[in-house]
Structures are given as structure tokens and as C-alpha cells.
């Protein structure tokens, strides 16, 4: 219950005083989304290092780095809430969070179901594209994306 109240307080009705805060939050949202996509690219570079034998054959680097940048997505949700981004953008950010969670658990199931392996690779592409799209969506129309609240 307290969590819900805290979530509601994050996005108060806009007044001249907190409009600047909303703008900063939208700007932060864009940078966080870009950082997320950059992390996905670095993540597959770490996979490449392992695949092509630059760092041995263990996927430990690739695996461990995956847990380092997952926090960006919940922070994006908070920034989106403060920045009054539109409900579809918030829904897409939520979808990215769900896909990220799925991405981290998929490799565990590929031993029993190797068919899930391609999904891990394709899901990485989707996450990368979602990050770029969310950044572009909020950046290209900062006011229009603020939804009906502005």
C-alpha cells in the first residue's frame, strides 16, 4: 500500500514548479534507454570475446555483466513516471523489463530445451531495439509523449 502511495506521489499534477523536474526526468529516461542499448551491445561483445577465444571459453564475463545493468529498466520506469511519459511508453518499458527478466533465465532452460537457445539470441536483438526505440520515442516528441496529463 505504501509502495502504491509512493508511486502515485512520483507523478503529481504538473505545475510550473515541477515541470522542470518532469523535463529532467524525460531527459534522464532518454539517456537511460540509450545506456541500456549500449550495455546490450557491450554484452554481446563479451560473448564474442568468449566465442572467439580472446578470454578463454567460459561465458562468465558475459553472464556476470548481464546482472550489472538490469537496474536501468526499473530506474527508467521511475523516470518515466516522474516525466509523465505516455502510458504506451511506460507499457513498453515494462515489457522491456519483462523481456530482460526472461533473457536472464532463458540460458538455464536451454540444457533441457535447446530450442530456446535461438530465443535468447533474438530476445537480445529485441531488447536492443526496444532501448533505442524508447529513447527515440521520448526524445523526438518530449511534450507529445507526456500523455494527456500535460
Amino acid at each position: 500500500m505504501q509502495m502504491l502511495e509512493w508511486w502515485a506521489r512520483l507523478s503529481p499534477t504538473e505545475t510550473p514548479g515541477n515541470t522542470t523536474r518532469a523535463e529532467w526526468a524525460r531527459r534522464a529516461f532518454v539517456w537511460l534507454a540509450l545506456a541500456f542499448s549500449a550495455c546490450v551491445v557491450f554484452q554481446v561483445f563479451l560473448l564474442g570475446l568468449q566465442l572467439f577465444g580472446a578470454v578463454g571459453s567460459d561465458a562468465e564475463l558475459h553472464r556476470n555483466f548481464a546482472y550489472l545493468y538490469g537496474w536501468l529498466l526499473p530506474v527508467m520506469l521511475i523516470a518515466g513516471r516522474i516525466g509523465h511519459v505516455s502510458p504506451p511508453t511506460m507499457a513498453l518499458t515494462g515489457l522491456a523489463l519483462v523481456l530482460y527478466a526472461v533473457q536472464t533465465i532463458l540460458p538455464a532452460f536451454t540444457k533441457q530445451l535447446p530450442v530456446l537457445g535461438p530465443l535468447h539470441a533474438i530476445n537480445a536483438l529485441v531488447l536492443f531495439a526496444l532501448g533505442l526505440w524508447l529513447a527515440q520515442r521520448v526524445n523526438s516528441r518530449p511534450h507529445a509523449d507526456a500523455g494527456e496529463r500535460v
Partner: protein
Amino acid sequence: MRQLMRQVLAVLAWGFLVGIFVQVALAGIGLFGVSTMSYHEEFGYWLPLFPMAMLVIVWPAHVGRRTSLAVLALTLMTIVQTMLPYFRDSVPAVAALHPPNAMLIFGLTIFVVRWTTDLVRQPQATPASSSPAEHVEALPTD
């Protein structure tokens, strides 16, 4: 003729996007042991044909500088992509750029798909005085 070329360009861009998905799925199939990497390797040599064909069409399609440069970049990146694994033994760190380069190709392809699709959707009638580049600049960015 110009509109037809633009339609062909858009179809090729969409085809290339689908091809990237298939290629990444084939990589996943190879990595997780469902099959060998040979399908990924074989298909990888066919995939650059898409941006190469697009590069031939951008001029008659009059798509403007932005899309032309993006298609040129896509062609170069795709050719480099096929060469990167050959550095496996000499410079493995360079070969490791193969997966992130695939991501960048994918990202750029999304933009090219969008721009070429927008070009097909826009009204045919254009003022005779406006250059193709000016016309493309007038497109909405979102």
C-alpha cells in the same frame, strides 16, 4: 518508376531485417547445440546481397542523402561482418566485434526500414522544383 524503385527498396529493407532475425536465430541454434554453425555461416554469405541490391537502387529511387548514406554504411558493415570471424586466430579481440557489429547492423536496418517505408507511404505528387533530398528532409521524424 521512382515510386516502384522506392517500393523495391522498402521490400529489400524489410527482407534484410527478417534475414537478420533468421541469421541471429541460426547463430543461437549453433551456440546452444541444436545444430552446427554451418547454417549460420552459409546464410551469412547470402545476407550482404540485400544491402548491395539496395545500394544499386537508392540512386533511381531518389531517396535522399540520409537514406543513401545509411544503405552505404549497411553494405560496408555487412561486408566487414563476414570478414570479422577470420581474425579468430590472429586477433581474437577483433573477431569478437562480430556479434556487436550484428547489433549495430540491426539497429541501422530498423532506421532504413522506417525511412524507406515512409517514402513509399508519402503522397506521390511532389513539386517539380524540390530536390529529392529536400523532399526527404520534409518527412516526419517520428
